[in-house]
């Protein structure tokens, strides 16, 4: 069956979030599954860092305002030290 549009959107949004945080907020590209040692999900942590930088509400979630900011055309240089 065709994927429901909402689920497809969600998949796209997640890809956008991940690649944005990898490009500009030094989110490590996880090539090898690792045992999680507790603590916050790195993606959530980086998302909060990005929301703080852009003066967005720091939710740690890819909410509408955050996705809107990520879709804006921008400079290719990261916002944080790589």
């Amino acid at each position, binding site marked *: 069956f065709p994927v429901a549009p909402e689920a497809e959107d969600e998949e796209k949004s997640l890809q956008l979030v991940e690649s944005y945080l990898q490009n500009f907020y030094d989110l490590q590209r996880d090539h090898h599954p690792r045992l999680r040692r507790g603590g916050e999900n790195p993606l959530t942590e980086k998302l909060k860092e990005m929301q703080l930088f852009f003066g967005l509400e720091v939710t740690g979630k890819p909410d509408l305002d955050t996705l809107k900011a990520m879709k804006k055309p921008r*400079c290719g240089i990261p916002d944080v*030290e790589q």
Partner: protein
Amino acid sequence: YVFTPGNPKWKRNNLTYRILNYTPKMRRADVDEAVRKALSVWSNVTPLTFQKVEDKEADIMISFAYRDHQDNSPFDGPNGQLAHAFQPGEGIGGDVHMDEEEDWTKGGKGYNLFIVLAHELGHSLGLSHSNDPGALMYPTYSYTDPNEFLLPQDDIEGIQAIYGQSTSAVQPTGPVTPEACDPNLTFDAITTLRGEIFFFKGRYMLRKHTARTETELNFISLFWPRLPSGIQAAYENIETDEITIFKEDKYWVIRGYDVLPGYPKPIYRLGFPKTIKRVNAAYNDETTGKTYFFVADRYWRYDEKKKSMDHGYPKKIVSSFGKIGRVDAAFQKDGYVYFFHGTTQFQFDPRAKRIVQQMKSTSWFNC
């Protein structure tokens, strides 16, 4: 402002640049001009100088590139990442790469080459991204008319912290990004718009919906690229769903994102005498359909249906509205008129014909 980690900087003030190739989307002369102007943004406020060289290595090599261009940072096609640059240093250090697949222009359409170049040169000189939304070194693109561009104060302070002040006798200063809860905040103009309130200041607008706590800060150009910055008066005609914007002796009529054709027009079409050079503030009374224009210590009244000024005007502001002084900005909401004079705001009841409350100019921002 933020320095690039490790505080890299050029050891000399006299730097060279070279344009390696040109985008076919702009005339060569326009690309040269955009590069020259972008470099002057930084040389105007520091001791730095930039000399153009041909056919040899320069400190700053500027080029247009496609996708993977052998620097480990491939471009991503139209939109997204527009350009990148390298911190000061030998070889690739200082170089600027523009994504050739972007729609480079010298105006408000597509991406303005001058604006993006000026930002990237900030990296070439040792600055990283600033989180000041009004700074040139803010990471996301926003258009400003190059003829009106002024390097913001945040960027001036950043680059001077690296290279020192300009050698000119008068030190340049730049616009500061307005902050909603700044007690000294004053406004150029204010209007309601489809249930929201827009507060204009310089090239910015603070957008407030009374049902939301936070205030949104945007460039005026984000919604209306054809409008100038520094507008002086604005009002909404709810009946026609239009706002009218004033600057000096011109006015624009806007509906949604569109500036209606044929604008700007001279304010004299509205019936102002030729002696009037600008309008300070305006508001439209939704119940009577009359628009009030404030100029210095007087005001006019305009009939939106007859499209002409009412007779018997101008009148003295104090005679009809009390001691509110000169009006910087005004708007009407829920039957009350709000007059702004500096950092003071007066709430006026047109039924009782008197001021019913005095507040601070920032009272709408939940500070």
